[in-house]
């Protein structure tokens, strides 16, 4: 098993999202028929079945829906990071996503806490969004 952090391998359905993160834009698919936003990306709108989807830029704000402090790393790649916060953030646009929370101690993270997107340029190809408390942003 690898010691390197697992990074996303974009595919044709997700490439626009990861192109967005490289520009520090958080993009979400929006249905041009029913107007609803969804995430993770689908080929058809999960709300109405339409295939007419376009990418919008999210505002980057949300709140912590749930979180866990990881003490036992899943692989050696995460060993130096423990304890770290894995969270689900509810974006203001509606969809949820999994992320990390930084910019505060794990003990300070609460459900409902307002957060804002921040960016980790891991390498020239991959940029990962994470979230920080909004008061610090």
């Amino acid at each position, binding site marked *: 098993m690898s010691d390197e952090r697992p990074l*996303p391998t974009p595919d044709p359905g*997700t490439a626009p999202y990861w192109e967005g993160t490289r520009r520090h834009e958080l993009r979400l698919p929006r249905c041009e028929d029913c107007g609803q936003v969804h995430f993770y990306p689908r080929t058809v709108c999960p709300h109405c079945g339409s295939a007419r989807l376009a990418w919008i830029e999210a505002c980057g704000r949300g709140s912590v829906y*749930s979180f866990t402090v990881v003490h036992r790393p899943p692989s050696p790649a995460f060993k130096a990071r423990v304890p770290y916060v894995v969270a689900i953030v509810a974006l203001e646009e509606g969809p*949820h996503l999994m992320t990390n929370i930084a910019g505060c101690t794990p003990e300070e993270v609460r*459900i409902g806490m307002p957060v804002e997107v921040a960016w980790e340029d891991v390498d020239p190809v*991959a940029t990962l969004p994470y979230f920080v408390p909004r008061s610090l942003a």
Partner: protein
Amino acid sequence: MKSTAAIAGIGESRLGLVPDRSALQLQSDAARAALLDAGLKLSDIDGLITTPVRVANWGMPCGVVASHLGVRPSYLSTLDLAGASGAAMIHHAAMAVASGQCTTVLCVAGQNLLSNKSRSTAIQAMAESGGTHAQFEVPYGPLIPSLYALIAQRHMHEYGTTAQQMAQVAVTMRKHASLNPNAHMRDPLTVETVMSSRMITSPLKLLDCALVSDGAAAAIVTTPERARALRKPPVHLLGQGYGLSHSHVGEYRNLTRSGAVDSGRAAFASARLTPADIDVAELYDCFTITVIVELEDLGFCPKGEGGRFVADGHIGLSGSLPTTTHGGLLSAGHPGLGGGFFHVLEAVRQLRAEAGERQVSGAKVALAHGNGGAIAIHCTLILGAADTVTNGAQA
């Protein structure tokens, strides 16, 4: 009540640390035990269902297992509903038998998950496998237990569920396992021991998490008529249901409501029964929080009351709803996709009054529930003792 098919035989391999048996040997051990139990021979088997294993890439697992056992079935299938596979195998076998495609289906699953790999390798393989989204989740470092920790944290927030209440699930499972001679872990546990075990991914501690074990389980499904002519009293399939709420927890907006709501409703409707009719509930227990959510979503207590239901002692052998009476994945053992199959076998034992020291007196109707992914896909079975179904007609 009406039966769609019957379980005529069950068998388990040794469960726990079994370093001297391969995955195929464990499955053979379980299959032979099930045949012996039913009074059948391998040549009687004309259907076979199995699941993928994690310890090897068998390509076409049903073909590999059938070939290893030397059977040439007229119906084969490899089924993968993750942790719900055990329960679903029984229903798929019932459909195969009811369609007339075959008469006698061997369902078998299990592997040497503990001995084949180191525990940490198994954990990394699981963390980077289907439970977590490769692009949108794995890069953030969740363990599989983290997915359930996110559910637990939200459940605590919404309903006031406590870590002590979750610990009580682990204590109860260990109590049940102490009465199961084949269980992996049988030493008693206390709430204090669970609470002081190592934090893995808050709020889940080591003893809130399932074991990693070696082992396999098997069952033989046939028509109710044929089952009545065999060695053991038949256990009837009275109803079943499925429910899928999501595939990845990160995108699911109602984490504390599981697909067990739908699988339970469908199972009770098809059996024409209600939660009050269940004498024993074999609930999937990959983590302590899983049992609490399932108790609520299957309708055994109101939403949000699962923690209190457990703390009040309802799920113990002398409680109002004896639950996961073999000790479950938390204490009896968890060999991957075969893990949830042991719950079905335990329901059969309870309905035959063969559960020894952990027998629930007078058990006539049992529920067996499997959950796969991060509380994502559910299969609920309702099973009845031999005398709940009259010969050829509805009671």
